[in-house]
């Protein structure tokens, strides 16, 4: 008998349930929610950081562009003035009016360009001051050029040439160039600084993207791993416990409470405990039943032996003082006593077969049938039986129990075919592919309308006067076959013989009744 003992005691461990472990004590549903929600929140945080970084980069780029714009504008002014100066000299030399075009363009464009430049650097006091100087000196340069041009137009070319010769124009131009170059140098440095800032902002944005991406992957995969590992570990405890329960071993310590798996674990433990209780009750009942059977087998037979024995002694020693009827009555007493003893034996066998554990081994059914037949047909009067033993396959079952089945079926076959001129008994295997056997005789048979009574305890289909027997044999057959997970049935007609079939499935679960 396997002893079950689970769920009642556990190996005590440091009280793990009391240790606060926030994540592991959440329900699976909450853990699942966090698994999705936490990376999402992190994503939002990184998104905001990225937005800030890229806005900074865009601003830096705008400032850099602004500086470039200022530089371009300034170079344009400077170039226009210098071209105008050169063209004026050309005009003074050649009096070709084409040269004046550049001067007119400078006169028209330079003041407006300087006004635009002034607006562009309005936020910078130093540069604004320089622009004002540039405006004044540029106006002076343009005035000087105008005066010169007018001299030539007025026919006083000599005066214009000598005016050029005074180098006053060159000095005026230098007064423009000094603040303009200082302005350009400052703006150039500013542009370079802003370019560096824009590049740094770009790099920052890229770094934010990279770090955010990496952290998010780490967070999501870390959470997923811890989630699945935690669930796997706890599910593993359930699986292990189920195996332990099946093997009758002690269960693992309970899971820390909080989630659905701990709930299942708790229910499983309750189940195991009630199963233990039920098994113990059953063992107790079995024990009582066994003690009862033991008493029956021991104590009920002694009085029977006394009744039988003393009746016999009465006949032997006092037969002379009894008449024939008295001796017949004593005979009746003795026969009934023997029947009673047989009944007790059969009932005990029946009860034992119900309680005994089945030990499945490979059983050579052909050899077992041959030997059993030799035993039940052993006495001389049965030698005339024709015994046909087909090529039957081996079975997986409890050897003593299967021997009991064949003994009962074959002794029935012998008994009920005895009145036949040529008794014939056949043992064969089922033809429908099921793992099963049959025992067929050509005996007196029975009416199938009583077939439902065949396998009941103490049920007999023939009167005791015609055939002996206690009516337990087929009940034993049925019990053994059922306990092997098989079924048993019969086919017969009065006077036509009877066939008893039974199956023994390979892996029959057994109906332990």
């Amino acid at each position, binding site marked *: 008998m396997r002893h079950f003992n689970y769920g009642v005691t556990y190996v005590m461990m440091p009280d793990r349930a009391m240790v606060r472990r926030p994540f592991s004590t959440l329900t699976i549903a909450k853990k699942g929610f966090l698994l999705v929600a936490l990376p999402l929140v992190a994503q939002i945080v990184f998104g905001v950081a990225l937005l800030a970084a890229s806005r900074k980069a865009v601003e830096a780029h705008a400032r850099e562009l602004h500086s470039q714009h200022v530089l371009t504008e300034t170079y344009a002014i400077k170039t226009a003035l210098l071209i105008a100066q050169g063209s004026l000299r050309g005009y003074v030399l050649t009096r070709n009016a084409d040269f004046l075009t550049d001067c007119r363009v400078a006169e028209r464009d330079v003041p407006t360009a300087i006004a635009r430049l002034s607006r562009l650097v309005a936020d910078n006091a130093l540069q604004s001051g320089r622009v004002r100087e540039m405006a004044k000196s540029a106006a002076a340069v343009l005035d000087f050029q105008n005066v010169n041009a007018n001299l030539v137009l007025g026919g006083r070319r000599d005066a214009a040439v000598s005016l050029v010769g005074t180098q006053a124009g060159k000095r005026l131009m230098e007064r423009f160039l000094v603040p303009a170059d200082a302005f350009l140098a400052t703006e150039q440095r500013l542009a370079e600084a802003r370019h560096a800032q824009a590049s740094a902002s770009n790099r920052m944005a890229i770094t934010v993207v990279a770090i955010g991406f990496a952290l998010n992957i780490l967070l999501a995969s870390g959470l997923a791993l811890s989630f699945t590992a935690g669930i796997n570990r706890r599910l593993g405890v359930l699986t292990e416990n189920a195996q332990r329960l099946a093997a009758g071993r002690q269960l693992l310590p309970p899971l820390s409470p909080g989630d659905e798996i701990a709930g299942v674990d708790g229910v499983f433990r309750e189940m195991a405990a009630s199963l233990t209780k039920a098994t113990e009750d059953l063992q107790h009942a079995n024990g009582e039943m066994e003690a009862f059977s033991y008493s029956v087998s*021991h104590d009920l037979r002694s009085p029977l032996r006394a009744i039988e024995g003393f009746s016999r002694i009465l006949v032997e020693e006092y037969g002379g003082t009894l008449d024939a009827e008295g001796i017949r009555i004593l005979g009746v007493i003795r026969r009934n006593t023997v029947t009673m003893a047989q009944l007790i034996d059969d009932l005990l066998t029946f009860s034992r077969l119900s309680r005994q554990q089945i030990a499945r081994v490979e059983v050579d059914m052909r050899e077992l049938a041959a030997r059993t037949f030799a035993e039940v047909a052993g006495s001389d009067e049965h030698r005339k039986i024709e015994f046909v033993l087909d090529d039957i396959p081996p079975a997986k079952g409890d050897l003593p129990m299967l021997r009991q089945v064949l003994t009962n079926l074959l002794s029935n076959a012998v008994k009920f075919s005895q009145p036949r001129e040529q008794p014939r008994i056949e043992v064969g295997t089922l033809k429908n592919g099921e793992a099963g056997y049959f025992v067929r005789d050509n005996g007196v048979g029975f009416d199938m309308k009583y077939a439902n009574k065949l396998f009941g305890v103490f049920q007999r289909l023939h009167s005791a006067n015609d055939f002996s027997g206690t009516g337990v044999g087929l009940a034993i057959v049925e019990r053994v076959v059922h306990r092997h997970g098989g079924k048993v049935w019969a086919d017969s007609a009065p006077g036509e013989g009877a066939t008893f079939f039974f199956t023994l499935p390979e892996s029959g679960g057994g109906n332990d009744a």
Partner: protein
Amino acid sequence: MRDEEVEILLVEDNEGDLELTLRALKKVNLANKVLAVRDGAEALDYLFAPGSVAPRVVLLDLKLPKVDGTEVLRRIKSDPRTALVPVVILTSSAEERDRLATYELGANSFIVKPVEFDSFSRAVTEIGMYWMLLNRNAS
């Protein structure tokens, strides 16, 4: 009977069985050397009394008052003074576990008492004849 030599110690609590056994032994003239005791304690008292001579065979029932047959067998077989005395279990019970347990303790025979008087009588006389006449003991 104590003064005479006891050759068969019969341990049996049931009146009927006792009388039937003695009758069967009488048929083969073995009844005069039998000492019958009614429970396990009496059997042990007899066997281990100072100066007692070991019987040639013990016929032992299993279900006995006070000390049961299995315990009597264990004591007999574990004591050097009696370990070699043949013990025949003569019981009503056909329980397999009794048979295995007593053989493991060193029982020399295990006989299930038949209910039919003829078979019973034959069994008892054969036991008596075998152990008293055919068998040669170790001591």
